């Protein structure tokens, strides 16, 4: 199969899977089978695309042209392939986990959840493979809309109000800031296609540059820069598998992915290097890292703590990309992968704890590690990755990031990173400590062990992925080495 067909299948398989899932709503086993089958075939397609020798040389696949000057097209490039691989791999693992979670917790409207999940993945793949800004925008909005029913899944007051934040912030930032930014770019550059090294004219004035960069940075609300981060903790009302895949991987990663892509393929490293716009973005990202870490420290609800940790980790990616040195761009790509594996393990663990022990607060976790050793081992590994310690994936990306910072001798950024690592340790280590070393305050009503096996299997897989990426970081690195700004 040629590359263009493969790209099209990447979008069609999850979308068609959604139809099959909806059609088999009466037979839960068949429906779950469909989900697994769709996820597995999507992963196979993405891997085929990844290994395709001509994947990066193929010309854009034009989906449709609403009118001259506006085109929807797909195109594979290294960062997009990396993102597509992560999303489809983790979807398969999450599908296993979701089945365990939904059945154990007797959730309602399961079909709707699986359908929206598949549609969200289809949109995510669309974002990953978008060939120009309008396509990116199209799938970005579709992702917001298809995840809204997931966030509000419970349908109670909290869910509706969380959904309001989610939709309100994401739609208003994208329609109000991202859309004009795209149209403006289209006018300045005469094209909106992603070109390695940027499309904006080199003589763009300083004020316009700052304004445009701010429009993108805040327009892409999914990247959760402060003060547009509020939707993320609010969206934690969703069932845990949704939080895991969408709010640790697909949605937030789509946000930082879009921003990195815009930095590398619209602005281009040349234009931004040493500009006021770059300094501003660095400051924003650094501020977000510190602020969110401090907020995370105050949260007692485990999922909310993870949410704030996500906000801060996303800004690592933005910071790394904004530094624009070869090492730091590698760090950005690696951290997208590392954080995805780590954060999904943490969320899986939180969901497993909720399912097995019905506990959602950090203060309730005393002694739980002895009842659920696998879960908390996975949690510990993922925490190491978040803090940036070996032998976990987060260490590799932080290593490259520090190289980038040291290369440009931005010592204040090094200080920010150090402080943030300490803060990360301060809000993750106590959890692990409580679970393993503190005695249980009172015994549970019913003695329990680990969560159902699909959930434990899934979280063990993602935790091993954290370790694998430390020992073999080559796959993401090879793709990262092809990015503009890395290759001379």
């Amino acid at each position, binding site marked *: 199969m040629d590359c263009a067909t493969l790209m099209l299948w990447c979008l069609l398989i999850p979308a068609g899977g959604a139809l099959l899932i909806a059609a088999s709503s009466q037979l839960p086993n068949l429906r779950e089978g469909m989900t697994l089958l769709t996820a597995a075939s999507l992963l196979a397609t993405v891997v085929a695309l990844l290994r395709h020798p001509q994947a990066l040389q193929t010309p854009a696949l034009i989906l449709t042209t*609403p*009118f001259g000057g*506006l085109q929807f097209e797909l195109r594979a490039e290294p960062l997009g392939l990396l993102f597509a691989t992560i999303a489809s791999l983790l979807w398969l693992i999450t599908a296993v986990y979701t089945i365990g979670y939904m059945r154990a917790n007797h959730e309602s409207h399961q079909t709707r959840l699986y359908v929206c999940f598949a549609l969200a993945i289809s949109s995510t793949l669309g974002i990953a493979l978008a060939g120009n800004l309008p396509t990116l925008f199209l799938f970005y909005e579709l992702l917001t*809309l298809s995840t809204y029913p997931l966030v509000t899944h419970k349908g109670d007051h909290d869910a509706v109000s969380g959904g309001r934040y989610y*939709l309100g912030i994401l739609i*208003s930032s994208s*329609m*109000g800031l991202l859309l004009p930014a795209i149209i403006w770019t289209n006018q300045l550059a005469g094209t909106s296609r992603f070109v390695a090294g940027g499309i904006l004219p080199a003589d763009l004035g300083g004020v316009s540059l700052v304004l445009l960069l701010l429009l993108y940075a805040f327009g892409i609300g999914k990247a959760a820069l402060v003060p547009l981060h509020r939707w993320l903790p609010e969206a934690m009302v969703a069932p845990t598998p949704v939080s895991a895949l969408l709010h640790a991987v697909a949605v937030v990663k789509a946000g930082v992915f879009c921003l990195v892509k815009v930095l590398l393929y619209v602005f281009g490293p040349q234009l931004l290097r040493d500009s006021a716009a770059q300094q501003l973005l660095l400051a924003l990202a650094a501020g977000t890292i510190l602020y969110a870490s401090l907020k995370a420290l105050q949260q007692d609800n485990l999922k909310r703590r993870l949410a704030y940790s996500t906000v801060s980790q996303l800004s690592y990616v933005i910071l790394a990309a904004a530094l624009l040195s070869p090492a730091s761009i590698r760090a950005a790509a690696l951290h997208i992968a590392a954080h995805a594996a780590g954060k999904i393990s943490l969320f899986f663990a939180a969901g497993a704890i909720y399912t097995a022990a019905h506990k959602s607060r950090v203060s309730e976790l005393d002694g739980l590690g002895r009842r659920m050793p696998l879960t908390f081992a996975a949690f510990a590994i993922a925490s190491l990755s978040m803090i940036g310690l070996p032998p976990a994936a987060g260490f590799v990306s932080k290593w490259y990031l520090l190289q980038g910072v040291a290369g440009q001798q931005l010592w204040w950024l090094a200080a920010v990173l150090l402080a943030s690592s300490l803060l990360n340790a301060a809000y993750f280590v106590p959890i692990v400590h409580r679970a393993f070393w503190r005695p249980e305050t009172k015994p549970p009503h019913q003695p329990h062990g680990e969560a159902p096996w699909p959930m434990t299997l899934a979280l063990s897989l993602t935790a091993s992925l954290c370790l694998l990426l430390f020992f073999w970081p080559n796959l993401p690195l090879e793709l990262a080495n092809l990015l503009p700004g890395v290759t001379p």
Partner: protein
Amino acid sequence: MNLLPLLPVLLPLLCAPLCLLVRGATTVWALTCACTLACFASSLLLAQSLWHGGAALPYALGNWPAPWGIVYHIDALAVLLLLIVTGIAAVTLPYARRSVAQEIQPRDIPLFYALLLICLTGLLGIVSTGDAFNLYVFLELSSLSSYALIGLGQRRRALTAAFQYLVMGTIGATFILIGIGLLYSQTGTLNIADLAGRIAAIPEAAYGHRTLITAFAFLTVGISLKLALFPLHLWLPNAYSYAPSVVTVFLAATATKVAVYMLLRVCFSVLGNRFVFEQLTLGKILLLPSLAGIVIASLVAIFQYDIKRMLAYSSVAQIGYMTLGISLNSEAALTASIVHLFNHALMKGALFMVMGAVMYRAGSVYLNDFRGLGQRMPWTMAAFVLGGLSLIGVPGTAGFVSKWLLVQAALQHRWWPVVLVILLGSLLAVIYIWRVVETAYFNPLHEIEHGTAEAPPSLLVPLWLLVGANLYFGFDAAWPLQLAQQAATVLRGGL
């Protein structure tokens, strides 16, 4: 001589009296249905011959040549409007049977269809004619019939709404008549092409001709009343909310569009682009009401509990987008405005059809009536969501194409405040649309109110046709855009 340019106007005019003769709800409905379909078909044929021929299609009534006789003149803009009006009519009529049977007294049904056809005649006549006085005649034809149509609404307040519209509409029509009279006094002709030529030839026209300015003032204010330009919109929310559902669908999707057409014709084809913008600063005159309309009407929409009324206010805001495009005085903006005219007919048609379907099942369209409809009427509410997304301007819908073109046109001149208002309108639309969506999907149905089921297929199929059009024209806007571009070029170049 080819009769085709006359057909869309002639057919409903001939069918209307037949409706009164036939009497018998189903027969009358079938006759009207066939008539609107024939109108739509002839409009399509007209579009096709214009597409191939390129130039405008003239038709001289009674074979009297141009300056003396009345001429019909179909150019790109007229074809686009013909397609909108006849297309909406052709979709609305199949929808009308069930809805009208429920909302209108049986003895009034033949009258209703006759009035609808007369209204259609008037709207199509305004679009087709090349004669200024003829335009006024058709305007009155459509207006008078629409007052009566609105008055047929179920609730007694429909009568006051119709009366309010009658008063405002008559003032508007009178202003238009005075304006046309003043133009006639200066030029001695009523043929639009001829008028344009003679006005251009008046030597004083270049530096402010008092009578012309007065005529322009009367015409603009009169037409603005008809098109419900903020703050002359006060008749519209009442008229739309109390009229029968079918009438609201039809008028919301066509009547204001035809009024915008009149504004375009008078400003560009009669008075000329340079005259209205350089002498009379039409740009500034329209700009402020448009911007204010977008913001204020959207804000008011957020606080409405009658959802039909909410959509009516949203229409006022959307009209602001159209006049905004005119006021920016560039070809790109005018094109955007004409494209939005087309797209808005599609989205508001679909949304008001949802209102009709809810009215059919629940009996009224207050916000409370939408509780639980997400489960009870899944197809209807899904159509509402998609229509609403188009109104917001989410990519993949027709609304996105309008927003893109408008923002692009405003950015060309670096008019950031205008861009800001356009996008603010979108964000406000999110709020008022989502209020309904949340109620429909997250609030449980009252236990006592059972029996609400999905709307019948005869309501759903036309509704989804319009929703499908909203999606289709979001992915392939080539031909409305091309017609709009052609129209904008002709308008700005003068006739």
